[in-house]
Structures are given as C-alpha cells and as structure tokens.
C-alpha cells in the first residue's frame, strides 16, 4: 500500500489519500461523536483539503467545521496592500512577490494593475529568487513583499542574512509577516465564535512546534490537534479532536508526526529571532493585534523597506459589502456574503478571500462546498 521510491506516485502524499482507510476513520468518527461540536480549521491549506475532498459533507451533522484566519494573503489589510502598491510606483523600484498577492485588490488597485500601468512587479517562487534579481539589477532597489506566517518567516530571514553576507545593498523586505498563536488568542478573547476544538496549522507548527498552542487547552479548555494536509491527515485530526472532546480531555496532540516535532525547528526559529522582533500587526477582520507581527530588528534596518522608503499609500478604502473579515473570524460563511458568486468571483475578486487559492471564498467557489 505504501509507495516506495521509484514507484509511481509521491511518497508521504499518496498513502495519506487512501480512500478505504479514510472511510474507516469516518466510520469511527460517527461511532464516537455523540454531541454537537464546533471545530475550527485555522489554516487555509486545511480549508482547501476539506473543501476539495468534501470532508464537511462526509462528517456527522453534529460536527460543524469553521474556517479560520490562516491565510496570509487574506489577512493582509488594505492599508498594507496599498503600501506595497504605492511602493511599486516608485521610480527605480522592482517589486518581487509571491504570485498569490498579484490580484489582491487594495483600496484603489492591485499589484497586477500597477504592473499593467508600467510598474516593475515580478512574481518569484522563493526569497532567494528575489535576492537573485537584486544581484542582477544593482542600479535598482529590489523589494520583496514579505507576507506569510511562521512557515515563511525563516525563509525571509535567511534571504536577509544571505544578502548581508554577500553585501547586497539593494535588497529590501517590506514585512507583513504575522504570527499565529497571538491571533488565535485574540480571536478566542473576542468570544464571537464558540469552539470545542482547533485543527492546528501543520507547517506553522513544523517551525514553532506544538508547545506554543498549549495555552489554548489550558486557558480556554479547547482541544488542539496539529494536522497534516492530506485528507487522511485531516480526518485523523478530527477523530483525535472528537476523542478528546468526548472524553472530557483537553490537550495539544500532534497528528502530523512525520512533519512536526513538539519542539519545532529550533534552528529556523533562531534565524527568525536574529533578524526579526515581534511587533503589532494589522489583520483584516481582526484589526491591530499586539505582538502578532514580525518587524526587522534595528541591526538589519538597512534591509527594511519601511525605513528605506517614504511610502504614502493615501487613505484606506474598504470594499463595500465584502464579508472577508467576518469570514476570516469564522463568524460568517462565504455563502452568507451577498457578493459571493455574483459581484465577487475568482476572475473579478472583491476581497482577498476570493483571490488566494487557499481563501475560504475561493475554496467554496472552486469545490462547490456551498452547492
């Protein structure tokens, strides 16, 4: 059953898409589940797995799955998008960004529209590609739009450390990096959503480990299980959450053991800590959350686009009627939004939740989770 090297398929992926084993897990969930519970999948990657595989529909009706704010593109506020777009229009600036950001509408336009108007905006796959563009264009200022969570933060730290080692002085980062545990705390303190369990993000935990989630069962009596991203992973995670809730236990468990250690990746965390320090960050839907962002430390300020450029993005305008913020907080579903499938589609997105491949609205739209 397991795929060995050289066989067709991808090892550590195909095994976790096994239909028969998935069916067995679902049967066990049905046997164990006796009460109405609310679970939140924090991460957009999990939202996609759940929508693509119809997991919501396969679960007992007593289990309600809510999507959380775990989509870095979606939670980037209009104010910050506007700053990236304003910077793109600066003379002598090359903007480098992950592709997901291109179509996200800010207050007045998007990076894609800025590019169409003549700005030099380039999609990169990795921060190291951005650094390569900086090496190749010494007369230009190359700015990387640093969006992401703890998973991506060490790769951005690594690019800054590499630029410093090589003396590349035209490479800058505009950091919109965000941290997950503080925003979950803010969400729970808000008290708008009542949760019994959280499907904790897998690849964020690959970096930070499982210990940073321990405040959730301790302070909020909510079950936590760290999950991988294949359907069998998510089902296993839900089974473990149901088992905890039904037995009255509340703790942090790791279902995704092949990818997550309790202590995380200490070396990667050290790289983050060398370059960045926690600072306040603005989240779409959540507002300003203290200590939930990462800013460059003073020792690395020469790589900080924030300090290197005077950015005037103009006044922020929010998208009228867009429920992206409420969707990110788990208080509304994409289908509750009047714009969904009408004024707002992946071709003509109004809000970022419809743009990002892992946005809840895009997942509902593409996989017909609402139909």
């Amino acid at each position, binding site marked *: 059953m397991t795929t060995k090297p050289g066989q067709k398929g991808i090892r550590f992926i195909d095994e976790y898409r096994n239909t028969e084993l998935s069916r*067995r897990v679902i049967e066990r969930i049905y046997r164990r589940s006796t009460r109405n519970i609310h679970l939140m999948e924090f991460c957009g990657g999990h939202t996609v797995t759940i929508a693509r595989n119809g997991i919501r529909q396969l679960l007992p009706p007593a289990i309600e799955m809510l999507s959380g704010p775990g989509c870095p593109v979606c939670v980037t506020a209009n104010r910050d998008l506007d700053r990236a777009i304003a910077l793109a229009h600066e003379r002598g600036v090359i903007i480098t960004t*992950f592709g997901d950001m291109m179509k996200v509408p800010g207050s007045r336009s998007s990076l894609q529209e800025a590019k169409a108007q003549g700005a030099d905006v380039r999609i990169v796959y*990795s*921060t190291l*590609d951005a650094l390569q563009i900086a090496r190749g264009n010494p007369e230009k200022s190359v700015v990387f739009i640093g969006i992401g969570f703890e998973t*991506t933060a060490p790769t951005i730290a690594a690019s800054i450390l590499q630029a410093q080692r090589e003396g590349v002085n035209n490479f800058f980062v505009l950091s919109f990096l965000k941290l997950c545990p503080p925003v979950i705390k803010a969400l729970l303190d808000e008290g708008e959503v009542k949760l019994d369990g959280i499907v904790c993000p897998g690849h964020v935990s690959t970096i930070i480990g499982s210990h940073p989630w321990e405040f959730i069962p301790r302070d909020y009596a909510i079950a936590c299980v760290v999950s991988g991203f294949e359907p069998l992973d998510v089902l296993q995670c839900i089974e473990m959450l149901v088992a905890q809730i039904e037995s009255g236990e509340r703790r942090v468990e790791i279902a995704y*053991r092949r990818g997550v250690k309790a202590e995380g990746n200490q070396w990667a965390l050290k*790289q983050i800590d060398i370059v960045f320090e926690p600072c306040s960050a603005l989240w779409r839907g959540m507002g300003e959350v203290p200590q939930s962002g990462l800013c460059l430390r003073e020792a690395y300020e020469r790589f900080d686009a924030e300090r290197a450029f005077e950015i005037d993005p103009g006044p922020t305008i929010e998208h009228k009627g867009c429920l992206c913020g409420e969707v990110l907080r788990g208080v509304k579903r994409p289908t509750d939004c009047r714009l969904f499938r009408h004024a707002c589609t992946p071709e003509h997105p109004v809000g970022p939740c419809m743009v990002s491949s*892992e946005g809840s609205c895009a997942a509902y739209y593409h996989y017909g989770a609402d139909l």
Partner: protein
Amino acid sequence: MCLAVPTLVKSIDDHEALVEIGGVSRKISIWLTPEVKVGDYVLLHTGFAISVIDQEAAEETLRLFEEMALEDDG
C-alpha cells in the same frame, strides 16, 4: 501559502541540495535544515527545506491506521 511538499534529497553541496519532485530535479536551499542527509525526505516550502520528514513516525502512523481498520473488522 504555507504549502510544503515532501521531496527526496539526492545530493548536497554546502547549503544547497538537489531534490527530486515528481520526477523533476531542482536545487533548493537547506540553510534551515542543517541536519539533512542524502536519502532524506524534506518538506519543501518556497525553495527551502523546512524540516526533515520523520520516516519512522510516518510509517508508524500508517501502521496505526491499518491496525485500527483491522480491529474494526474484528
């Protein structure tokens, strides 16, 4: 955004490694996983290995699934 895929490390040269992903070879950075060895599988995220896959844990998880399925039948 936090997408990471398992890839097999074929060779290592300083902070870079050659990996195979879906039959295609490409160079990645192993700056964030200094412990990686040839023959390991790593989780690849935006051009960086972010962790070495624990193969024992992976096999144990699958064995557990199969054992539980057998128990259900029994």
